[in-house]
């Protein structure tokens, strides 16, 4: 009888490590299912917890590549209605030994996307407190988009300037040609009139040098 009791007492520590809040190798997990899914939120129950343990076991297997982790190696405690709890991963060969925090963290980071998707959640709604979400690598396109818009605008404006300058130039040339024709006509008319002393002739009439321009002194 006593030996049976002793056996029973010694078994639990051999079977599982004591999980507690703030355990040095444990992580707190927090789920916000209603925030993420709204009306389609599922209830958190034992089966969901089983799925969670399975995903963590999967993450550990993937990370270590050969060690066979099982659902029983994931110890969960301190569940709250928030849906938050603590978990510790124990070594499958030696259940009294916990896997160190850093190894668990790295394993979770590698498979974070798979874990999130299993629960239809995201990094923000399935939080591992202490494991920061991996930032998405910034998408840097070859040319910054603003340079493309800039190129379009400056190209259009330069094309417009060139077009307007050319049309001004053409217009000016055409006006000059019309002026030349008008001048030729006038000169032809002048020759017909037969006025001599062309050096004094101006289009506005004959300039009388004797009459000087006094106007500039009357301003003040």
């Amino acid at each position, binding site marked *: 009888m006593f030996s049976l009791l002793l056996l029973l007492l010694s078994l639990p520590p051999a079977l599982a490590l004591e999980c507690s809040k703030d355990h040095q190798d444990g992580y707190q997990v927090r789920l916000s299912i209603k*925030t993420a899914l709204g009306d389609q939120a599922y209830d958190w129950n034992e089966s969901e917890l089983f799925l969670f343990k399975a995903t963590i076991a999967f993450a550990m297997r993937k990370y270590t590549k050969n060690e066979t982790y099982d659902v029983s190696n994931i110890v969960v405690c301190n569940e709250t209605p*928030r849906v938050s709890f603590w978990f510790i991963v124990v070594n499958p060969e030696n259940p009294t030994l916990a896997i160190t925090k850093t190894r668990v963290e790295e394993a979770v980071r590698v498979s974070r996307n798979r874990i999130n998707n299993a629960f239809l959640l995201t990094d923000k709604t399935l939080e591992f407190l202490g494991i920061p979400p991996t930032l998405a690598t910034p998408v840097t396109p070859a040319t910054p988009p603003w*340079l493309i818009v*800039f190129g379009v605008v400056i190209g259009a404006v330069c094309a417009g300037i060139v077009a307007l300058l050319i049309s001004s130039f053409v217009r000016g040339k055409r006006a000059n040609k019309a002026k030349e024709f008008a001048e030729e006509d006038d000169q032809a008319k002048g020759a017909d009139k037969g006025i001599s002393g062309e050096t004094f002739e101006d289009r506005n009439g004959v300039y009388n040098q004797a009459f*000087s321009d006094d106007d500039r002194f009357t301003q003040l």
Partner: protein
Amino acid sequence: MADSEDAKSGDERPKWDNKVQYLLTCIGFAVGLGNVWRFPYLCQVYGGGAFLIPYLIALVFEGLPLLYLELAIGQRLRLGSIGVWNSISPYLGGVGVASMIVSFLVAVYYNTILAWVLWYFFHSFQNPLPWSECPVNEDLTGYVQECLDSTPVNYFWYRQTLNVTPNIETNGSLQWWLVLCLITAWCIVYICFIRGIETIGKAVYVTATFPYLVLTIFLVRALTLPGATDGLIYLFTPDWNLLLNPRVWLDAATQIFFSLSLAFGGLIAFSSYNPQKNNCERDAVLVGCINSATSLYASISIFAILGFKATSNYNTCVQGNIIALTNGFDVADQNITVDNFDSWLDNLNKTDPAKVSYLNLTECNLQTFLDESASGTGLAFIVFTEAVISMPGSQVWAVLFFVMLFSLGLSSMFGNMEGVLAPLHDLNLVPKWMPKELFTGCIFVLSCLVSLIFTMDSGNYWLEIFNNYVGSVSLLIIAFFEIIGVVFFHGMGRFSDDIEFMTGRRPNLFWKACWMCISPLLLLVVFVAYIIVQVQTTPTYPTWNPDYVDFPVTDVQPYPTWVFVICVLLVAIPVGPIPIVALYRLINRKLRRTGRTDTSRTSNPYANEGFNMDT
């Protein structure tokens, strides 16, 4: 009579295609960025609806008379600002030169603001908008620290756009991206100026009308968003006590003055292209009233959006508190909502007050968010861009907003550059061989080079200096001399005759009373009050310094002495020509009079010394 004067001036003066172009150009010049980002701020800070009273009084007694005067004098004398004041009296020639210098200095920094608007416009085509989230730092471990300390919107403005230095003494280098935007802005203004008012007149059909369209769209959209009515109520709730503060009246007078773009010479130039027989009285009243109505309309739109932004911020604040409570007390997800937050908080406070205070919940007050006021570039590039992020379809709203700002600024630039180019043309400084387009291009290249100052790292600080010192006191002085010049040198009687010739009737008693005593008196009072206010405060400026203890609060620094000297120069250089030219003409006349007693000094062989020509 009009035709003979045209023939006397040589080549034909350009004309507006129709009256609408002229009116739209004047309205576009008057309606600028200040209507959108200065007036709503003043309205908010000076007691909402109550501010409209000093504003309207200033409009009627100061704005409209000065506007009418400028339009009338330009239309009658058919010259740019320098020519006009030379004609009225050679001693007043300096007023025109002063207008030209001020127009140039303002154009130079104003276009930099347009360059910033273009920069934001170019970036509005991305998803997500670059100012909505912090960029990741170099080793991809987290976000940039400076951005985390302040906000993504602030970081994008101060770091990624301006790359601002901690103070004005540190100059930094030219920012290539801003130089590109600046060149683009100058090119766009140039393309509208190529053929003078021929191209300007076509451009204003778009630039003057588009802002109204966008403001209406924003108003309609904002009214469908939550919190818009809070913003509007907040804006217009009058606080009558503030009317007792003289500062309110001073700011109303200066706002109406600068808002109408008086004393730049641009309005004189624009009206000089009119036919002489044009009712400029009606034009003046129309332009003045439309300008003020636009300010009011813009403030409605802006504050509807700002009300929405304040409500969004308030909701975010409350949500943050809810999450803190939910996580702290492990309450089931979404049990605490915005509605029952207060009752939950009371319950938890009764059961475990220590834990509640440990959570450090922030106090969320809608009024505090509404009180966050901003004007100028802060409103456009920080506050409004933040509001746009929360609106669904942010890219569309951002593009619309920045195109509106650009067209507002562009139509004002027309007036600024016209105030520079028209006097140069009238002074016949353009060599005959140089086509108009080339000359305009040269002036623009010069302006572009000068405005490169503002693309330096410390450019924002210099722009604030230019904004505060160039476009303020000098304009008041110029306007004062304008009114004195017309009333006393030209003569009220002669001016009334001119107006009768142009509009068909003499100006009534109200206009005469304003021109002869009310407006000059108001200008003098505003000028003196402005000086007093400036002298009382030591000039300081807010700096963006990431190493500052209280960052992201701006570190307010005083101006160093050499910068202060530049500020004084910026006021003195435009105003200087007024006494200088007057003295020069006076001395010239004295010399000429004394010179005539000497023999053979004159080139006129018919000068009879016995006959004094200076009657």
